[in-house]
Structures are given as structure tokens and as C-alpha cells.
């Protein structure tokens, strides 16, 4: 379910960005016209794509990592190493989520705007929510590894 929502969101965002960017190019070159909010919206779309893509990468265990242990150390090391790594990643993403929440709360308090006069927090909120879900993903990963024992 969660995986499907991720994929659906990423598809809508990516295809929407492609469509909007193409429309901008056509308007600019053939009609000497530009939609003034389009470039900003595309940039915010890229941020959303980045966070949701990172969330999906957390679910699928596809973040860039070095991971010497699984390749060069005995099998008995693998589990403790993977659990430690996942718990650490969960802790850091939780902290990031909290800091991002404070950033968005400030943006709300000062009534920052984007795209003309829309509230900025509504677009920035993807950061705290995304990091929070990533933290949950890493915890699930750690629990799954521990459960493999039984």
C-alpha cells in the first residue's frame, strides 16, 4: 500500500514536471510568453520528488552506502552490523525530521509565501513528514533483521 502511494506520487510529480517544463519551453520559444509561477512550482516539485524518492530508497534499502562488512567480513557480523546501521539511520532521520519541523513551524509563524501568495509551509511540510517516515522505515528494517533470528 505504502509502496503504491510512493510510486503513484512520484509518477504524478515526475510526469507533471515534465509536462510543465515542456509547456514553458514551447511558450517561451514560440509565443515569447512564460507562466510566472511555473519555474517555482517545478523547483518545489523537484524537492518533493527528492524527498519521496529518498523515502522509497529507504523502503527498498537502496541508499548510497559503502557497506564493507557484508562483502568482506564473516557472516556472523552481518546482522549486528545491519541492525546498528539501520538504528543509526533511524535516529539521524528522526533528528532531521524534528529540525525540519522547526524550520516549517517558523515559516508558518512568519507567514512565508511561495508562488505569489501561497503559504510556503504547505510545500515545505514534505521535509519533516518525509524524514519522519524514513525514520520509521529504518526502524522497521532493524526490527525485520532482528526477527529473522526466530
Amino acid at each position, binding site marked *: 500500500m505504502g509502496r503504491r502511494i*510512493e*510510486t*503513484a506520487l*512520484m*509518477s504524478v510529480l*515526475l*510526469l507533471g*514536471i*515534465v509536462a510543465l*517544463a*515542456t509547456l514553458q*519551453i514551447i511558450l517561451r520559444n514560440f509565443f515569447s510568453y512564460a507562466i510566472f509561477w511555473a*519555474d517555482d512550482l*517545478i*523547483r*518545489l516539485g*523537484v*524537492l518533493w*520528488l*527528492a*524527498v*519521496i*524518492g*529518498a*523515502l*522509497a*530508497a529507504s523502503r*527498498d534499502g*537502496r*541508499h*548510497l*552506502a*559503502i*557497506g*564493507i*562488512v*557484508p*562483502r*568482506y567480513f564473516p557472516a556472523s557480523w552481518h546482522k549486528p*552490523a*545491519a541492525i*546498528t*546501521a539501520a538504528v*543509526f*539511520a533511524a535516529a*539521524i*532521520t528522526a*533528528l*532531521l525530521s524534528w*529540525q*525540519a519541523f*522547526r*524550520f*516549517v513551524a*517558523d515559516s508558518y509563524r512568519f507567514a512565508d509565501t511561495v508562488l505569489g501568495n501561497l503559504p510556503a509551509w504547505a*510545500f*515545505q511540510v514534505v*521535509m*519533516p513528514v518525509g524524514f519522519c517516515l524514513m525514520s520509521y522505515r529504518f526502524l522497521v528494517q532493524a526490527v525485520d533483521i532482528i526477527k529473522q533470528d526466530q
Partner: protein
Amino acid sequence: MTLVLSIVLIVLILLGAPLFSAIGASAMLGFSGEGTDLSIVAIEFYGLAETPVLLAIPLFTFAGFLLSQGGAPARLVRLSEAALGWLSGGLAIVSLIACALFTAFTGASGVTIIALGAVLFPALVASGYSERFSLGLITTSGSLGLLFAPSLPLILYGIVANVSIDDLFRAGIIPGTLMIVFLAVYSIWKNRHAATRKGTVSVAELKSAIFDARYELPLPLIVLGGIYSGFFAVSEAAAVTAVYVLVSELLLRREIPIRDLPGVIRESMLLVGAIFMILGLSLASTSYMIGIEMPQRLFEFVSPYIASEAGFLIVLLLFLLVVGAILDIFSAIVLVVPLIVPVALQYDVHPVHLGIVFLAAMELGYLTPPVGLNLFISSYRFNKDIAEVYSATLPFLLVLLVCVLLIAFLPQLSLFLLF
């Protein structure tokens, strides 16, 4: 204290913690040591939404993944073979050129070996090249197009180093070609006694191959022509590429069913998410490093030992070979580039030249143990022992090393097309 924490972070990375978590942790540790409010990390991450050219990364990545799904790789091989297969060592040269072109468009993420290797490896062996030679050639070719537009690492370097991406695209042409030529000459020389079968000259086959590739052929012309002529900005070229590939592969060819599209989007955006995660957090760690004048300190530390530009380049290359053997190219760019660009400027190394040297050296990293990506992909894809892949790749690695040295010490190779 800092030392202990750094060691803890390194151990965590070696245990397999995602790189972004270590980058984020070091940024937060650094800022908290200075008493800076930690929400700065989120503010810096939000910088991802304030960098227009970043758009090029998801669009090119998506287009590359989509392109590698259908029959485009096979058509590219067929066309190159019809055009060049009749030469002595023809199929080896075909492999080099096809892989380089494909890698430039797919961003050196390992897709080349999987998509093209499946076609080229058996073809090379069937034409009389030894299995060992073929394995080494394909493994090496998997990252060969890195220096050609519109490769992802080039774009990322431009963003991180704040250098014109158009300039980088121009600068990569001669060094990238040099690598292909050297590898081609080595391939011909290596097989001078082998009884390799050459293709025949067939105008009919060439025509038919061109017709077969009619939808893909205009793509490099539009994208490269558009970028090099200055008609498109980089992100515009990326949008055009994405639309072009969507229309040609999904609607005209109908090779990839529409229902597979979300899967391709997910796969490509996983990579984009992973790259942006380290990029976003490294914006924070870099801002901390700049704040404490790390590049200046680095320069003061090395300057008593390194007096000249040449000396700097030698030390830099040694350093990059180690970095390339440990880090993937994307992480290496976002972590290392902000630190070395200011230092390089002090030694009068042009930032564009530095970029080409950096990426060329990183290209070797794909082929060096312990974590060389191409070695593992090849070993997995062709079901060979990793040690066998490594020894098969070694001669090619040495040829590329010579190229990297030439690229480093002859800045004109990179800068000639710029001015």
C-alpha cells in the same frame, strides 16, 4: 572528542549505514559544537528547491532508465556494428563507442553493463575475442561515457563546484575521446594475432540499421546539438529528452507497455532520491566546512609540502584514486569537490579542468576494488568470480590510468574547446 566522533561515524559507514546519515550527523555535530541552531540543516536542505538546474538530474535519469528498458540498446549495437564492424578490431571499437554514448545518456549508474553487456559480451566471444578480454572490455566500458554530455556526474559537478555546465560539456569532449581512442588502440593491438571475425561492409545492412534506429537517432543530435549550440539550457534539454523518449518509446514504438511506466519511474527516482539526499545534507555540511574555513586550512596544511601545480595534481590524483575506490561517484562529488575547488584555485588549476580530472580519476574508481561498482555489476551479470573480473579489467585500468595522467598534466585537452 572530534576525532573520536569522526572514527565512530567512519565505523558506522563501514557497517553499512547510509552515507547521507553520516553526512547529516557530521553537519549537525559541527553546527552544534559552534552553538548554531540545528534547523540550519533543514534550511540548507531546502536549498534543493532553490537550485533551478537540479531539474536536469531527475529528467535525464528517468529518460536514461526508460531508454534502457526497451530495444534501444540492441538497436544502438546493431547500428554501430553496421557502421564500424568491418574494421579490424571492429566489434571491440563498436562496444567502446556504443557503451560510451549509452553511459553519457544513462548517467553511469551501472545500467550500461546490464543493458548493453547482455548484447555485446556474447557477440564479442562469438567473434573470436577471448572471454577474458571481452569481460574486461565490457566492465571498463560501463563507465566510459562519463565525460560526455549530458552525463549526470558532469551536471552534478557543475552544480556543486558552481561551474558552468555548458563549459564542462565542452571540456569533456577531447578527454573523453582520448580515453576511447586509447582503449581502441589497445584492443586492436591486444588482438592482433587473434583470429577475430570481422563484419563485412554492407550498405544494405547499414541502411536497414539506420531505419531501425530512426526514432532514437535524432535524440543525440537534438540534445547534444541543442546544448552545444547554446539553443537549450541544460534543464531544458533534459525536459526535451524526457518528452522525446516518452513519446518515441511508449507511443511510437510501443515497446514498453504504459503499465510498466510507474515501475521505471520508481526505479529511476530511487536513484535520484538517494543522490539528492546526500546532496541536500552535504549542502549543510559544506556550509559548516566553509564557515570554519576548512578549505583555507587544508591549503595551509598542504602548501608547505606542495609547491607547484604539478605537485598538487599528483597528490590530488593519488587522493582521488583512493576516494574513487571507496566512494561512489555521486557521493565523492558532493563531499570532496567543495573542499578541493578552493585549494585548486590557489594552485592556479582551472575549475573546469579540475572537474574533468576529478571525473576521469573517478572513472578509474569504478574499476578498483574494494567497492568498484562495475566490478560487482559485471561479476553479478556475467556470473564470474570477482577476482576473475578484476584481473580481466586490470590491463584496461592501466590504459585508462595513462589517459588520466595525460588529462591531468595537459590542461589544454580540457580547456582547448572552451576559449
